[in-house]
C-alpha cells in the first residue's frame, strides 16, 4: 500500500494529537493507588495528592451520621492469603497500621460492613486522616465460595 507523504502528515498529526492528549491527561488525572502500609510509608510526601487506598474496614469505631451523610471508620491492611485462602496474618483489632477515614456528603454504600474490603478515594489531610470523596466496596461480581457451607 502506498500512501502519499502528505497522508503521513495528516495521519501523523492525528496520532501526535492523540498522543499529546493521553500524555497530558495522564499527568493531570493520575492518582496513586496504594495499600494501607504504602500510605503509611509515604505519608510525608502524599499531602494534597489524590490517592486511592485499598484496605479493609476495621471492626469497631464505625460512625454513620445519616443527617450530615458522614461516615467515619478506620481501614487496616488487607491481609495476604495463602494458597488455601486462609489469611496469613489475621486482622487484629490492634493492627498497628490503620487510618481514619472521613467521608462526608456521600451515602453509605450498601455493601459497607466491618471486615469488607473497600477502596477509598480522596486525599490525606494534615491530621493524618483520609478525607474521602468516595468509598467503594469491592463488589463481588462473581462469588468465589470459600467452601459451600
Amino acid at each position, binding site marked *: 500500500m502506498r500512501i502519499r507523504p502528505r497522508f503521513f502528515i495528516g*495521519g501523523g498529526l492525528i496520532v501526535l494529537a492523540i498522543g499529546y492528549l493521553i500524555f497530558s491527561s*495522564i499527568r493531570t488525572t493520575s492518582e496513586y493507588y496504594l495499600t494501607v502500609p504504602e500510605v503509611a510509608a509515604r505519608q510525608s510526601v502524599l499531602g494534597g495528592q489524590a490517592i486511592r487506598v485499598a484496605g479493609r474496614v476495621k471492626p469497631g469505631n464505625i460512625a454513620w451520621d445519616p443527617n450530615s451523610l458522614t461516615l467515619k471508620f478506620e481501614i487496616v491492611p488487607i491481609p495476604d492469603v495463602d494458597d488455601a485462602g486462609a489469611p496469613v496474618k489475621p486482622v487484629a483489632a490492634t493492627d498497628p497500621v490503620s487510618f481514619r477515614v472521613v467521608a462526608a456528603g456521600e451515602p453509605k454504600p450498601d455493601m459497607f460492613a466491618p471486615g469488607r474490603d473497600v477502596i477509598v478515594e480522596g486525599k490525606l489531610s494534615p491530621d493524618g486522616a483520609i478525607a474521602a470523596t468516595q468509598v467503594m466496596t469491592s463488589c463481588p461480581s*462473581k*462469588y*468465589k465460595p470459600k467452601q*459451600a457451607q
Partner: protein
Amino acid sequence: MPQLGNLALAIALILAVYSIVANIYGARRGAPDFVVSARHAIWAMCAMVTIAVVVLWTALLRSDFSLEYVAAYSSTTLPTVYKITSLWGGQQGSLLFWTWLLSIFTSIAAFQNRRRNPDIAPYALAVLAGVAIFFLLMLNFVTRPFDLLATVPAEGSDLNPLLQNYWMAIHPPSLYTGYVSATVPFAFGAAALITGKLDDGWIRSTRRWAIFSWFFLTLGNMFGARWAYEVLGWGGYWAWDPVENAAFMPWLVMTAYLHSVMIQERKDMLKVWNLSLIGLAFGLTLFGTFITRSGVISSVHSFTQSGLGPYFLSFLITVTLAYTALLIFRSKDLRSPAEFESYLSREAAFLFNNLMLVGIAFAVFWGTIFPVLSEAVRGVKITVGPPFFNRVNGPLALGLVFLMGIGPLIAWRRTTTSNLVRSFAAPVVIGVATGIVAAAAGLRQWYVLTAFSLAAFVLGTVLVEFRRGMNARRHMVSEPRAKALVNLVAKNNRRYGGYIIHIGTIVAFVGIVGSSFFRTEVKKSVHVGESFMIGSYTLRFQGLDETDTPHLESATARVQVLNADGREITVMSPAKLFYKRPQQPATKVAIRSTPASDLYVVLAGIDDSGQTATFEVFLTPLVFWLWAGGLMMVLGTVIVMWPNVRERAAIATALSRSSAGARELGDLGAPGGD
C-alpha cells in the same frame, strides 16, 4: 450425569484436534474426503459441547448441589430464570458457555463454506478449532465445570443478587456472542495470510459475521450500561472501569474494521490495516477475558481471581506473535497498487475515522493498563480514573462525529469544490444554526456547543442523503414520497441501514453529552412528611412500607413528586432490599424517564425508627436519548443484515454472466456474499 459432562468435553477436545489435522492434511494434499471428515468432526465437537451444556443446565435446574458449580452459583429458592442464567454466572460455566458459542459458530461457518472458499475455508476452520482447543483444554484440565463436592450441601450459596436482574441475564450472553463471533472473521483473515489468498475474499465471506459481532457488542455494551444505570444506584451508566473498557475496546476496533474494509473492497487498499484490525479485535476479546480473570488490574468488579490469567496471557501472546509473523511474512504480497489521491476523498475520511477509533481504543487500553505499567516502571501503582478517559476521549469523539458527517457524502478518490458546496451547504447551515440556538438558550460550555452543532451537522448530512436518494427514485419510478423512502431503504439496505446506525449513534452521543454535562444531584435526609427540591421538582417523603419474604426483606419509600405548579406528577418507590442468602443489602432505584430528563431516586439509607430516610436524587437531562439511540443502532443493524433477496438474485445472474459484473454490483452496495 456429571461424568457425562466430563466425557463430552474430553471427546470434544479430541474431535477439535482431529479436525485441525484433517482440515490441513485435506487442504494441502487436495484430499476433499479429509476436509469433509474434518467438517463432520466440527459438527460432532459442537454436539459434544452441547451435551456438556445440557448436563450443566440440568444440574442447575435440578439443584444438584453435588456439583461444586451448582452449589456455588445457585440455590433451591433462586427463580428458574436465574437458574438458567447461572450457566454464565460463574467462571467455569461462562467458559463453557463461551466454548459452546464458539463451537456453534464454527459449525455454522463450516456449513456455509461446505462448497465455498475451498482454498481458505479449511485453514479458517482449523484456526477456529485451534481457538476451541484452548478453551477445551481450560475446561478439561484447569477450570472444570463438573467437579464434585466431597460433601453435598443441603443448599447452594445462590447467585449474587446484583446479577439477579433481567439486564444482567441478557448482558453477558450478548457480549459473549459479540466476542466469540469476532473469531470467525479473524480465522478467515488468518487463513488468507496462511494460504496467501490475499484478495478481499476473506472479507466478503465474513462480512455478515463482522456485522453480527458488532451488533452483539453494541447490544452487550448497551445492556451493561443500562444495568449499571438501573441497578448500581449511582446515577450514571458508565464508569470507565476496566471491565467496561474490556467490552468497549473490541467494539471500537470492530467499528473501525467495518469501515475500513469498505475501502479494501472498493479500492483494493489498506490490506495490512484490515488484517491488523481484525487481529487486534480478536486479541482484545482475549485481553478482555484475561484482565477480568487474572486480577492483574483491580476493578470495582472483583471477578473470581483464578489461575486462569497466565494461561490466557500465554495464549494471547502466542496468537499475537504468530499472527504478526504471518503479516510480516506476507508483507510483500500485501502491497496495494492503488494510492490515496486527495484529502478530500471518502478514503481519506475513512482512514482518519479509523485513526480516531483506534486512537480511542488505544487511549482506553493505555488508561486500563496504566496502573500495571507504572508499577512495573516506577514501583508505584498510579491509576487514572474517569477524568482521564473523558479528557482524552471527549475531543476524539468530536473529531469522530465530524468525520461521520463528512465520510458518507464526500466522493471517492477526490472531490471538487462545487461538489463540496452542493453536499455540505445545507448541513453546515443546520449545524451552525443549532449552535447559535443553543448559545442563545444559555448554553456556554464550548464542548457542548460544538458537540450539539456537529451532531446537527451529521443529522443534516444524513437527511441530505435520504432526500437525494428519494428524489432519484421519484424521478425514475414516480413513487409517492413515503413509498419512495421505504423502497430506498429496502433496496439499498446496507447503505441506508448504515445511515440509520449513524443517526442512532448521533442520538446516543447527544444523550451522553447532555447527561454528562447537565446532571444535578441532591442528597438529603428527611423525616416523614418533609420535602425537598431538585430542579423544578418537589419531592415529598410520605413514608416507608416494609415487607418480609423468605427470599428478601425490603423497605420501600413512597416519594411523591410534584411539578413546579405543585401538582402531583407521580409517586416513586425507591427501595432498600436485604437478601437473606447470601446476606447482602441492595438498592432498588426508582426512575421516572422522560425525553427531557430522568428523575432518578435512590433510597440511600433509613434510620431504625423508619421515620427518617436519606435520599440521593439525580436529575439527568437527555439520558433518555442514549437508550433511544441504542435502539436505533439496533434497528439500523437489523436493516443492514436483512437478506436482500432481489439483490442476491441479481448477483447470481451477474455472476453467471461475468465476474466483472458482479464486482460492479458489489460496488453498488450489494452484499457480495455473507
